[in-house]
C-alpha cells in the first residue's frame, strides 16, 4: 500500500476519533458547567482548554460559548470538532480509491453538513450538535467495519483510531486530575465516554474515584478504556510488522506501545492511581512517540520535493 495512502487512513482514524471524543468531552463538561452553580465558568473553561492542548486566550474571561467556538466550531483548527471532521474528509479525498465509496460518501455528506453546525448550535443548542457528531462518527465507524476489507488499510485506520483514543482518554482523565477531583466528577467522565451504564453494571453501583479511574484506565472489556485501546494498537502494529525475529519485537512502535501496555497491566491499580498524573503524562508521551515511530517506518518521505535547477557553461 502507498505510504501516502496509509498515512491518510491513519489520520482519518485519528481525526474521526478526535472529533467524536472532543464532542463527547465538550458535551458533558459544558453540561456540567452550566448545571453546577458552584463552578467558576472562567476557571473551568481554562482547565478544559489546557487539558485539550488548545491555546488559552488571555484577553477576556472565558465563557462556555467561547469554548464551543474554539474546540467545537473552529474550522481552521484540526483539533476542533469541525476542524477534525474537515481534516478527515480532506485525507479521505486524497485516498478516495482506497476508502470504500460508502465511507467516502458518509464523510463527504458529514463535511457538507458542517457549515450548518453553527446554525444547529444556535437553533437547537450544543447538545444537538454534539449528538449529531457522535452519530455521524458512529455511522462512519459502522461503515468502515462493514465495508473495508481487513487489509493493511484497515490496520492503519484502526491504529490511528486507537492511538487517538489513548491520547484523548488520557486527556479526559487529566481533566479530573487537574481539577483536583471535584469539578468534573467521575460521573461526568464516565458519561462522556459512554461508560456510565457499563461501569454501574461492572462495579454494581459502588461509585468511587478509584473504581472509576481503574475502569477507564484498565478495564479489559470496555473498548474505550486506555488499556483496551493500547492493546488494539499493539495488535495492529504486530500485524503490520514483518515477522518477529527470535528476540523481542520487530519495530520501535511495537516496543513503545508494548512497554506502555505492560506498564498498565502489571503495575497494579493502586500504584497507578497513586501516581495518576505521572501515568497520564506518560501515556501522552507514548502517543506522540508511537506517532513518530509509525511515521518514520511507514510514511517516509511522502512530502513533495522542491527542485532547484543548476547549470554550468
Amino acid at each position, binding site marked *: 500500500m*502507498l505510504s501516502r495512502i496509509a498515512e491518510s487512513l491513519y489520520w482519518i482514524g485519528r481525526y474521526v476519533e478526535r472529533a467524536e471524543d472532543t464532542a463527547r468531552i465538550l458535551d458533558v463538561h459544558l453540561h456540567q458547567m452550566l448545571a453546577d452553580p458552584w463552578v467558576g465558568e472562567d476557571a473551568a473553561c481554562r482547565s478544559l482548554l489546557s487539558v485539550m492542548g488548545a491555546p488559552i486566550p488571555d484577553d477576556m474571561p472565558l465563557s462556555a460559548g467561547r469554548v464551543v467556538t474554539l474546540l467545537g466550531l473552529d474550522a481552521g483548527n484540526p483539533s476542533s470538532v469541525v476542524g477534525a471532521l474537515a481534516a478527515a474528509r480532506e485525507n479521505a479525498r*486524497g485516498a478516495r480509491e482506497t476508502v470504500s465509496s460508502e465511507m467516502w460518501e458518509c464523510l463527504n455528506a458529514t463535511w457538507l453538513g458542517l457549515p450548518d453546525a453553527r446554525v444547529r448550535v444556535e437553533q437547537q443548542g450544543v447538545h444537538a450538535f454534539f449528538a449529531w457528531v457522535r452519530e455521524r462518527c458512529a455511522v462512519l465507524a459502522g461503515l468502515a467495519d462493514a465495508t473495508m476489507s481487513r487489509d493493511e488499510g484497515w490496520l492503519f485506520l484502526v491504529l490511528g483510531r486507537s492511538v487517538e483514543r489513548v491520547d484523548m482518554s488520557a486527556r479526559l482523565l487529566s481533566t479530573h486530575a487537574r481539577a483536583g477531583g471535584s469539578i468534573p466528577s467521575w460521573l461526568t467522565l464516565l458519561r462522556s465516554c459512554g461508560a456510565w451504564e457499563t461501569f454501574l453494571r461492572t462495579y454494581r453501583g459502588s461509585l468511587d474515584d478509584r473504581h472509576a479511574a481503574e475502569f477507564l484506565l484498565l478495564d479489559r472489556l470496555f473498548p474505550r478504556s486506555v488499556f483496551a485501546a493500547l492493546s488494539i494498537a499493539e495488535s495492529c502494529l504486530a500485524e503490520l510488522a514483518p515477522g518477529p525475529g527470535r528476540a523481542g519485537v520487530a519495530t520501535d512502535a511495537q516496543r513503545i506501545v508494548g512497554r506502555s501496555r505492560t506498564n498498565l497491566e502489571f503495575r497494579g491499580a493502586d500504584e497507578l492511581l497513586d501516581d495518576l498524573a505521572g501515568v497520564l503524562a506518560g501515556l501522552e508521551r507514548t502517543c506522540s512517540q508511537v506517532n513518530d515511530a509509525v511515521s518514520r517506518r511507514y510514511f517516509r518521505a511522502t512530502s513533495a520535493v522542491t527542485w532547484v*535547477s543548476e547549470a554550468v557553461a
Partner: protein
Amino acid sequence: MADLFENYRLGPGWDEMFAAAGMPRDTYESLHATLQPLSSADLGVRADVLARAFLDQGITFALKGIERPFPLDIVPRIIAAAQWAVVETGVAQRIRALEAFLSDVYGAGEVLAAGVVPRSVVVTSAHFHREAAGIVPHNGVRVHVAGVDLVRDEEGTFRVLEDNVRVPSGVSYVMENRRAMSHVLPEVFASTRIRPVESYPSQLLGALRAAAPAGASDEPTVVVLTPGVHNSAYFEHALLAREMGVELVEGRDLICAGNRVAMRTTAGEQRVDVIYRRIDDEFLDPVQFRTDSILGVAGLLNAARAGQVTIANAVGNGVADDKLLYTYVPDLIRFYLGQDPVLPNVETYRLADPDVLAHVLDRLDTLVLKPVDGSGGAGIVIGSQATDAELADVRARLLRDPRGWIAQREVKLSMVPTLIGNRLRPRHVDLRPFAVNDGSRISVLPGGLTRVALPEGALVVNSSQGGGSKDTWVLAAPMGPAESVPELRPAAPHAEPAPRPDPGPGTTSTQQQQQQQQVGGVRC
C-alpha cells in the same frame, strides 16, 4: 397537466429529437413517449434526486478552487446504431493517422520531407517537445486514450471540432451519468437497448498493460498519476484508479532512480511499469520541463527513454492536437492510411497566408476564432456573439500572432431538449467519444460525453463555462450478430422456496404474549 414540451421551438441547429414540430425521430420515440405524459413536477423531482446523488458522491469538478457538481440533464441524448458506426469508424481512423503522425515527427519525419505538413507548423507548435524525440514506445502506442470532439452540423452530419490526445478528461462522467440515469429513468432503460459503458476501466487497463515495457512481468504494475485532490478532474482520476484496481499516486509517491520508477509503499519501494498520467507534459519531469514543478517525478522522461517505464499518453502528443495541425488531419489520413476521411472537419482557415488572414479579418463577425493551443473553450471568440471591443481585441491578436489562431465557420450545433426551469427547451450539444488504443485495436466507447450549453443560444459547451452534460445512449444494432447484447432471461425458478430466516427469541415471546392475550380475551 402542463405539457413539458409546451412552446418548444425548433432550431436554429439540427434538432436531434424532432424532425418537425411534435414529430419525434425514430431513435427518440420511446424516450418521447415516456417524457410526454410526465408533469413538470414529476420530472423536477427526478432531476433533484439526480443532482443530490452527484453532490453526495462528490462527483464534482473544481472551478477556481470551488467544488461544483457538473450538472447532469435528465433528458438523455440518443444516437442510432448506424450513425454511431460512422462515428466509431471515423474516430478510430483519425487516431490511427495521428499515431502514425506522432511516430513520424518524433522519428524519421517523412511527412515533413514529403511536404504534406509544413515543418513550420510542427516546429512552432508549443507542444512539440524535442525532449520526446527518440522515445520509442514498446508497443508503438502513444495515444493510449483519445477524446475527439465532434459536433453535428445543420444537416445532422458529424464533424470533428478538435482532437484531444494529451490528457483527455470526462470519461468518468460517461460512467457516472449512466449509473445515475438508470436510477431515475428506469422505465426508458427497460424499453430501450442501450450499449453499456461500464467496461471502459477494464479496456483501459488492458491497453495500459499492453503498453508495458519489455521485461515487465506478465502482470505489469500500472498506476494513475494525479496532480492531487485540488485538480479539477481529481474525481475522475480516483474513479479510474479504483475501477481499474490500481494505485492512484501523486508525484511525491514515486521515485525514479537509475531510470527505474518505483512507488513508496509501507513495505518499501515497489516497481512501477506503466504510468497513466493525468499531469500535463510541462509539469511531468522537472529535469526536462518546468523545474518548479512539484507535481511531477524527476527523471521520469529518461526512464521512459531507457525503456524502463511507459508514460501514457506519451510525452509530446500535443503537437498532434494543435488546432493548426487539425487542419491537416484529413491530409494525414490520406498520406498514412491511403483512405478518405470518414468524419469531415469543420471548414477552417489557416491564417499564416496573408491573403487568407485578410479575408478572415474582413468577416470576423461571422466566424469562430480559436487559439491553437487553448483547451476547455478558453480564449474562443464567437464573432456573431462578440462585442465590437472583443472583435477589435481579437483582430489585434490575430495580426500579432497569426500562427496562434485558426478561424472556423460558425456551426449551429445540433440541439437536444433539456430541462430548463420546468420546461424542456432545445439546447446546443457536442460529443466527445473516448477511444482506447491497446496497440492491436482502437476501441471507441459507445457513447461518450455529451456536453450541453445551458444558456439559451450559447455555443460553447464546456464545464467551465456554464455547461452541463447529458447521458449519451448509443442504441444497439437491431439485428447485429456482432453485437453481443445478452438476451434477457427470466430468473431461474427455485426448485423449492428457501427456508425462512431464523427468528430471534424476542419475536417468539411477543407472539406468545399476544396469543395469551387473545386467549384471555375469549375467556372474558
